[in-house]
């Protein structure tokens, strides 16, 4: 590598990590939070025992999993304006990613809730709890432990998927890399650099997952 190329890499590290800090990471966090709210709601709908409600939830999951994320993103940002609904890039991205994560995580949450033994519900009822309290205080905390590994997967995928937001004009990690690449014509270098930064973020997340799992495992026999 020439010294010019080194300078380019070092010089672009600023804008690229800036894109990560101001774009990728907040976008992923906001979308994951929104997605989890949707996921719990959809999981509870599927478990509600009401056929219409459960069918609605199933339909949602099927639709999200059966269509490409890029298409979902484009429908929200480029499609809705033709119905008179114009949404800015950032909210568009958060809406699309949240809906997407919600569809995938709903299945994880549902399975995790079902994995808690029936006796836990009964013990909660017997001490006088109603269903919502039992869910909140007894069932979900136990379901959370089971769902950390699969939800971490979802979150890590989401972090990488946010690169798609560059296609709807959100300034994030990958878009910053693209800008420098287009300007300098050093595509290989800049895209590898972007990949490396994604990798570092995901390594940090994996470490976080390990810590969280260990913490939630403190009440389980080994």
């Amino acid at each position, binding site marked *: 590598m020439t010294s010019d190329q080194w300078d380019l890499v070092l010089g672009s590290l600023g804008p690229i990590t800036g894109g990560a800090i101001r774009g990728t990471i907040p976008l992923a966090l906001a979308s994951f939070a929104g997605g989890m709210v949707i996921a719990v709601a959809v999981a509870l709908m599927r478990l509600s025992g009401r056929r219409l409600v459960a069918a609605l939830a199933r339909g949602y999951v099927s639709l999200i999993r059966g269509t490409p994320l890029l298409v979902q993103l484009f429908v929200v940002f480029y499609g809705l304006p033709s119905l008179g609904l114009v949404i800015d890039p950032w909210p568009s991205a958060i809406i699309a990613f949240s809906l997407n994560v919600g569809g995938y995580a709903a299945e994880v949450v549902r399975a995790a809730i079902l994995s808690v033994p029936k*006796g836990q519900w009964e*013990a909660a009822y*017997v*001490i006088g709890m*109603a269903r919502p309290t039992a869910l909140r205080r007894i069932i979900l905390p136990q379901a959370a*432990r089971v769902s950390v590994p699969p939800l971490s997967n979802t979150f890590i995928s989401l972090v990488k998927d946010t690169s798609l937001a560059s296609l709807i004009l959100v300034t994030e990690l990958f878009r910053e890399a693209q800008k420098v690449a287009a300007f300098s014509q050093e595509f290989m270098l800049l895209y590898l650099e972007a990949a490396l930064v994604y990798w570092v973020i995901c390594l940090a997340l994996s470490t976080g997952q390990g810590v969280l799992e260990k913490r939630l495992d403190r*009440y389980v*026999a080994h």
Partner: protein
Amino acid sequence: MSPTDPGAGRAADGPALLAVTGLRKSFGTHEVLRAVDLTVHTGEVVAIIGASGSGKTTVLRCLNGLEVADAGRVEVHGSLAVDFATSPDRRQLNALRDRSAMVFQHYNLFPHKTVLENVTEGPIVVQRRPVREAREDALALLARVGLADRADAYPFQLSGGQQQRVGIVRALALRPDLLLFDEPTSALDPELVGDVLTLMRDLAAEGWTMVVVTHELQFAREVAHRVVFLDEGAVLEEGPARQVLTDPAQERTRQFIRRLLHPL
């Protein structure tokens, strides 16, 4: 740790604490309970015995609404609490449930909560009692069953016998009128059964009203005032514990007891 009237034994006067009539329950086409009647007076210990599949546990679970019977009336202190035939709403079932507390065969402690939190969860979160008072109560109850030093342990760190004693303390902490025990020693290693039975005998002596589904015939004979023998979903025989267990009127009861005492 004082129920209504310590050492009262059986107060047979006045309306029963709990009177169940015509309890029926089917799971699909399988009829589990066919018209079971059961009366429990304050301070009384009733043991329900019977072969597995006879419906013992289902009766117990109908008494607190964990299972919704198809038909049958439950009266509490002489007034109608739940009529299962009219598909009771949740409010009625909750009112019934609030009178009792249940001890499970598999303890069902909350694994993500400490021993102390398991015991105080109901009093604090549901009954909204002051946190300090609930804690002190719980610690006193734990001390009573010899587990004060395990208050901050998690359930997985306890033996089965200890877990079941916590299960009993969790029930007591709710200050219920009625304690329901669903085969409380069946999941325990034999050498741990004694601790739990001793505790239950002490509770009976203090006058707690108890309905116990059990295979422990010796416990039933020594502690229960009355034994109910359930066979294929119906009460085949009931009466004073000693009489039913040593000189049953029905051949079927005799067989069952013999098989339990002499398995080989």
